[in-house]
């Protein structure tokens, strides 16, 4: 079954891709086998994140961008497009309503487009746990471009920056004062800004505020948030004093009328070229591989320790911690140093 699915994914069969994404979402052992098998076939797609506050028009923008990339233009051949659209899971019921397809009806019937709606399933960074692996499935399935539309995000949902090569931050006029814009968070992850609903009052002001924020930023080395840590991009290999830092361009758009989309497309393409020319792309891939390996080791180590721990012993330790007889650090050392911890896998 796994071999068949892998062959199907690599042949671009939509049913196989859809099935594989479900397996990845449900995190079974089969998912691991599939991801391992397709790994060497990934790394080709340009991954573009689209994030911004709820109701800022992310889905409609993705719809417009996908149409434009499908069509192609002078100098850009038409590209196939995968879309992952994430909506929040209800913390109360565990269910979700995924409504992003409503705004993407223009894309129906095009075999060069694959849209997958995804519930966040308790993940808080604006993505779902399975998002990065789903990107890989679409990448291996031959989609040239993969858009990842995050949960409506405000200030802290910055996980998209480590999944995407290019992050588009969507802002709308009239959301807050200048201080909102200079707070740490989502604005710092932007490679490209879209000020959407630019026909509304205050659009020019929103652009000015972003410009001002970028002016303040441009003096220091460029930094990106990565796994909650700040990484200095300028300090990396391939980056020299002669390569100019990327200044995120700001584009006014009216997504419902398709206005300003061409400029946004150009900016996304230009950012990819910048990443390639400066060696930044290689660096980002390496950073991503490092953080992923770290996460996998954490999960696997936890899994192994728990697999070798007696349930009653664990409950006893937890009780002791709760009664303040033992501290959690000593308890974890106890579990990690158990003599019978022969790694059977």
């Amino acid at each position, binding site marked *: 079954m796994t071999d068949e699915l892998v062959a199907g994914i690599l042949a671009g069969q*939509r*049913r196989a891709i859809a099935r594989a994404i479900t397996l990845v979402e449900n995190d079974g052992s089969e998912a691991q086998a599939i991801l391992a098998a397709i790994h060497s076939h990934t790394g080709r797609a340009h991954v573009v994140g689209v994030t911004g506050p709820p109701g800022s028009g992310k889905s409609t923008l993705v719809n417009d961008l996908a149409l434009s990339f499908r069509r192609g233009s002078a100098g850009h051949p038409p590209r196939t497009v995968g879309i992952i659209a994430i909506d929040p899971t*209800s913390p109360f019921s*565990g*269910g*979700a309503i995924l409504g992003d397809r409503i705004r993407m009806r223009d894309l129906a019937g095009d075999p060069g487009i*694959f*849209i*997958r709606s995804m519930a966040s399933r308790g993940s808080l960074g604006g993505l779902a746990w*399975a998002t990065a692996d789903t990107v890989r499935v679409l990448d291996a399935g031959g989609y040239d471009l993969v858009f990842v539309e995050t949960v409506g995000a405000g200030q802290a949902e910055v996980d998209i920056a480590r999944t995407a090569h290019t992050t588009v931050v969507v802002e709308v006029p009239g959301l807050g004062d200048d201080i909102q814009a200079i707070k740490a968070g989502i604005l710092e992850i932007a490679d490209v800004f879209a000020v959407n609903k630019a026909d509304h009052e205050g659009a020019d002001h929103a652009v000015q505020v972003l410009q001002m924020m970028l002016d303040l930023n441009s003096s220091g080395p460029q930094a990106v948030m990565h796994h909650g840590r700040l990484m200095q991009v300028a300090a990396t290999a391939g980056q020299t004093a002669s390569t100019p830092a990327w200044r995120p361009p700001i584009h006014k758009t009216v997504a419902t009328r398709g206005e300003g989309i061409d400029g946004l497309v150009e900016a996304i393409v230009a950012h990819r070229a910048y990443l390639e020319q400066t060696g930044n792309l290689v660096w980002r891939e390496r950073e991503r591989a490092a953080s992923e390996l770290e996460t996998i080791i954490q999960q696997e180590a936890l899994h192994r320790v728990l697999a070798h721990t007696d349930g009653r012993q664990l409950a006893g330790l937890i009780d002791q911690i709760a009664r303040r007889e033992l501290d959690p650090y000593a308890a974890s050392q106890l579990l990690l140093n158990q003599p019978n911890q022969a790694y059977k896998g």
Partner: protein
Amino acid sequence: MPDKKIRVLIAKPGLDGHDRGAKVIARALRDAGMEVIYTGIRQTPEMIAEAALQEDVDVVGLSILSGAHMALFPRIVGLLRENGLDDVLVVAGGIIPDEDVPALNEMGVEGVFGPGTPTDEIVDFIREQVS
């Protein structure tokens, strides 16, 4: 954390624009812990079958009030089967006369739920059929 969820596509085929019932069902299924892909009104059979394929849903729920169900449902079920979605449960709601139900069941619409059906009944039916 990751775990298995029932995924449901709720779609309104045809030309009527009344989506209140579909939204009520979508919310009820969400509150029952399911992931509901809501595609909105005026969906063609092709759009519905394609969405069901890409989203790899367990269930397709069709809401229709226009009276065109005997024309549209066979096309939708046919396209689902053509796409290889043989195991997808198809249910329907809206204004569907009782005398049409046996024929719909026959063609693969396994549950038909008219106005006034308690939402729990639909949730239970889906859970039972999908597990």
